[in-house]
């Protein structure tokens, strides 16, 4: 029974995730995203992680999704919906090399930190006996043993936010007078 639900939800999550990318209408894309969030939460529940499932719904379906909706519906993004083709120039030249280097370094550091912190099997029980479902062991694990990977992941998120900001700004240009003041 649990297996059946797992496979069903896993398939749903993949289909919904494909829908997010494939949907032509951004609103449909967001709906697919919602479906994928719920499928993931169901998988957590089937695996016995109540806390994770509740957080998944609260943070992703509650906050992140609403933020996406906010951006799509309240900011004027009508001209950004079309991406005709992938520009190969993005993958050439010195800038591209730097991009790959920096991204690779960040990922490498995170992976290294995560691996270095986790002790070898048998060294010590990495996880509390009753799993990480209860809040106290979860907090203990997150803020003591896995503090460094935890903080590094948040630095990675910050880097992503900065990158998005830079990309969005560059795309718009400092003063966009050509479009008759519709730069906002």
């Amino acid at each position, binding site marked *: 029974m649990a297996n059946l639900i797992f496979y069903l939800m896993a398939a749903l999550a993949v289909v919904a995730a494909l829908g997010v990318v494939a949907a032509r209408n951004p*609103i449909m894309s967001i*709906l697919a995203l*919602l479906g994928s969030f719920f499928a993931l939460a169901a998988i957590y529940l089937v695996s016995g992680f*109540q*806390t994770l499932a*509740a*957080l998944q*719904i*609260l943070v992703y*379906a*509650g*906050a992140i*999704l*609403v*933020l996406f*909706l*906010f951006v799509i*519906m*309240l900011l004027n993004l009508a001209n950004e919906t079309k991406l005709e083709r992938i520009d190969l120039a993005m993958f050439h030249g010195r800038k591209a090399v730097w991009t790959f280097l920096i991204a690779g370094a960040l990922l490498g550091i995170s992976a290294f930190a995560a691996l270095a912190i986790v002790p070898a099997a048998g060294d010590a029980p990495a996880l509390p006996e009753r799993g990480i*479902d*209860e*809040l106290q062991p979860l907090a203990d694990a997150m803020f003591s043993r896995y503090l460094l990977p935890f903080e590094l992941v948040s630095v990675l998120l910050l880097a992503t936010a900065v990158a998005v900001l830079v990309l969005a700004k560059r795309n718009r240009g400092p003063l966009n007078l050509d479009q008759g003041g519709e730069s906002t």
Partner: protein
Amino acid sequence: MNVLFGSPALHALVLGVGIVSALLGVTSYFIWFERKFAGRMQSRIGPKHVGPYGLLQPIADAFKLLIKADITPDTADRALFNLAPLLAVCVALLSLAVLPLASGLVIADLDVGVLFFLAAGALTVVPTWMAGWGSNNKYALLGGMRAIAQSVAYGVPLVLAALVPVILSGSMKLSDIVAAQAGGHWFALWPPGPGLGAGVLFVLASLAEGNRIPFDIPEAESELVSGISTEYTGMKFGMFYLGEYVHSLVVAALFVTLFLGGYDGPGPDVLALQLLWFVLKVSLVSVLLLWVRWSYVRLRSDQLMTLCWKYLLPSGLLLVAASAVWVWWTEQGGSR
């Protein structure tokens, strides 16, 4: 887990069906009560023609809604448009799953009960937005966008307010939170300050999340016709209202559980008496909410945002800090 009927699945089924049907019945008479109450506040009599004191009015209303024409606009997104009212009721009912009505009388006493109802509350914006977008009507869309802005803002103080009882009781399990308040140590009364402040914050943020007056900006019938429900007819229109009323009853029940000791009250710990105390408290809080609803006018969008970000959010942070200090202080005192 503590189950009343054999297996957990049967327990959940029996209690779930029982509680939901009871609540739907209560809700229709709550609406009758509100109409009488609002009538009295405005020097009117309220419904009086159908049955004695208009007592059969809810049944007549439900029947009227059911036999009305069901219209879906041609340009609407059919799937979203038809799904939204259904989801509005379902999402409002979700929080009931973790609500302890009496000792042991709870559908699923999750370890993360508080987190669960916060998650369920955060979902209320989804059907609202579906209706706003799916209707393909400018007023509905404006209502939907307002709902989203409101939900982004008010989710934060709601979480902070719910965090205070969690800190004070040291648990996210609602039955533990009630147990921590046993014997009249209700969080709204003791410790003085954080509990009561968080209670007020919780009610305000919940009302904003459920789009109730004075925070019914997504509906705003004086500006947006009827906001998100502009294009809806018949029972689908009724379901939005049903969802809204269920939500306000659930908010009252959660307020009682988190801040007023839940089913705790004088007398022996008998199931019936506990249930009675719970129902009494929820009724009292509901009347208080109605009082607020019919006394204040709707806030403007900018006033709503000012209230949230400049007043509710800082006071929420302050209350969380204060309750943490209180817990630390009592623990220090206990160890000496």
